[in-house]
């Protein structure tokens, strides 16, 4: 069967991904375009799962659908856009072609990278591990923390900067906030009445 063949399935999913990514910016309602974005994320996640990159596909679901799509919905709610009329322009087409070629190249490189890494790790060639190939989580952990740990620390700093930037931008520094201090309320006793 053509559908149960994995490469045919990837072909069908890629064609679906092209249509969904077109529908993201063609659709008039911004909420619908966010929903199409979520569908595109799911599509990419299924493709990565078929290509034996399981951990990245789960990251796509958790990070992109669980968190970033929520941020997009917040932006849609805040900007309060009623209708967005789509007008076709030529540079949309150019952007689309460039994006498709970039996606094609990068997905090939990603899969090739993981296959090469699985071959290069020597100490997992023990007879016990030859039962099944090294899974994606093991590969990612060993490569990331043994060879690229400086990049990992840099990722931590980027997350820290993002956190501090979000707090500085969005928080209004009110000194006279009406917070209730719970410990002061709970530690109040009759000794405080003598003061007055």
């Amino acid at each position, binding site marked *: 069967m053509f559908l149960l063949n994995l490469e045919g399935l990837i072909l069908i999913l890629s064609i679906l991904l092209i249509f969904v990514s077109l529908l993201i910016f063609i659709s008039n309602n911004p909420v619908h375009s966010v929903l199409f974005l979520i569908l595109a994320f799911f599509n990419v996640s299924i493709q990565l799962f078929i290509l034996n990159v399981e951990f990245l596909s789960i990251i796509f679901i958790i990070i992109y659908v669980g968190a970033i799509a929520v941020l997009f919905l917040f932006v849609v*709610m805040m900007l309060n856009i009623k209708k967005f009329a789509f007008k076709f322009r030529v540079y949309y087409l150019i952007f689309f072609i460039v994006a498709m070629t970039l996606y094609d190249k990068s997905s090939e490189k990603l899969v090739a990278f993981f296959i090469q890494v699985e071959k290069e790790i020597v100490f997992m060639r023990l007879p016990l591990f030859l039962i099944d190939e090294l899974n994606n989580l093991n590969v990612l952990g060993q490569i990331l923390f043994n060879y690229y*740990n400086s990049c990992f620390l840099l990722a931590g700093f980027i997350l820290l900067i993002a956190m501090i930037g979000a707090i500085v931008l969005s928080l209004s520094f009110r000194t006279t906030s009406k917070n209730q201090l719970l410990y002061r309320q709970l530690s109040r006793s009759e000794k405080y009445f003598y003061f007055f």
Partner: protein
Amino acid sequence: MPFTIFSNEISKLGILFIIALFLSIVILFLSLTLGVYNPDTEKVSPYECGFDPYGDARNAFDVQFYLVALLFIVFDLEALFFFPWCISFSFLNIEGFFSMIDFIIELFVGYIYAWRMGALEWN
């Protein structure tokens, strides 16, 4: 592409997905064709408890919800970086171990900052 025992077993789930897709399309199509659908201007127009709607359903809310969602993403990513570290723990060298400790300290600094600035408080 590599064909492992895992992908061999997981490909049987594809049959389930295909059946689910087929069944949902059939049910949607049947409800669309067999169901009675005669719309009316009174039926289709929006209402709130019998009244005409006062304002827009989408109202702008406080920016602090956005801040909480962004802090959630950061700590979600931190939790996701733990998984490959835990799985490959016995194959790590000493730098790999202490890079995760340093990562935790970096994000703990951010957490202390968010706590001290009052980003987690509501008023």
